[in-house]
């Protein structure tokens, strides 16, 4: 009698368990509650947080407002990768560039080869040098530090950004955003 009741119950519980554990593929938003906190690598949320902090700090500093002919012309320079992983710097610099151009405070210097070709052709035909030198260059560095205590690992990524004035040879703005992740394994959630 007992077995007659227990077997279907166990079967139903097992079915419920399997259904609950399986996650069907679905679209997610960057920064949502389901984001994966990857312990040993920089993920898209980390780039977003670093770019957010840099843009917020740069716009608040007013450094871009101190140019003779606003909006400031910014050329994106190199972001040095001092981490153990491959980093595409556009994941960081493009986000910053987009926000700066949308703010109306800066324009980003052309890097597109086709566009540059047309610009040179135009300069040749009009016999006028229209190329404007950048007011600033944007550079940065990403540094990874790892601490371990038993099975627990803490990885900290330091995103250092700087706005350089090439005419004066000085850095007019600098910022650093540290993103730390700690645990024994990667997880889903904040």
């Amino acid at each position: 009698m007992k077995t007659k009741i227990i077997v279907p119950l166990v079967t139903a519980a097992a079915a419920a368990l399997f259904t609950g554990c399986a996650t069907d593929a679905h679209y997610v938003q960057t920064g949502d509650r389901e984001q994966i906190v990857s312990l040993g690598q920089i993920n898209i949320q980390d780039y977003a947080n670093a770019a957010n902090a840099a843009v917020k700090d740069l716009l608040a500093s007013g450094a871009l407002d101190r140019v003779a002919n606003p909006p400031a012309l910014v050329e994106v320079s190199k972001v040095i990768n001092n981490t153990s992983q491959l980093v595409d710097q556009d994941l960081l610099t493009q986000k910053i560039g987009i926000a700066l151009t949308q703010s109306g405070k800066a324009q980003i210097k052309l890097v597109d080869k086709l566009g540059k070709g047309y610009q040179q052709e135009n300069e040749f035909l009009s016999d006028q040098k229209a190329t404007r030198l950048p007011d600033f260059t944007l550079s940065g560095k990403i540094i990874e530090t790892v601490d371990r205590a038993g099975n627990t690992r803490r990885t900290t990524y330091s995103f250092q950004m700087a706005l350089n004035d090439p005419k004066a040879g000085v850095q007019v703005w600098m910022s650093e955003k540290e993103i730390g992740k700690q645990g024994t394994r990667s997880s889903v959630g904040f």
Partner: protein
Amino acid sequence: MKTKYLLPVVCAAAALFAAGCGTTVNSVENAQKDGRRTMVSDQRVISDTGLNHRVGVVGVNTAMTAGGLLRVQVELLNETRSLHRFSYKFEWFDVNGMQVENILSASSTDQIEGRESKMITSIAPNPGCKDFRLKLISAD
């Protein structure tokens, strides 16, 4: 006999609980302030009362940058005795009430210690954005 074992266990558990949850923040600041905050009146929608207790909004103040961008600072207070993790995002709206989305509206995660008061800030994506909304969600 049972009580003999149960009582010390309960006491030990209570002591552990109190020790673990009792990490709160002490602070000190100058009493005569030189800075003056421009507080703004705010409208609140509280759907998670527990979160409001752990990450409550004390006040909102704003300032303009030299370049004409609106800066917002929100003071949060954790009224409990334990650390709490939360996620937040600022949404920005132009003069027509249309939302302007860019990296400044990205979600950020943060944490607040027990009884800690903490500021979170944002800046308008462009000079045309004058209205904002802060969204807070629990991450624990």
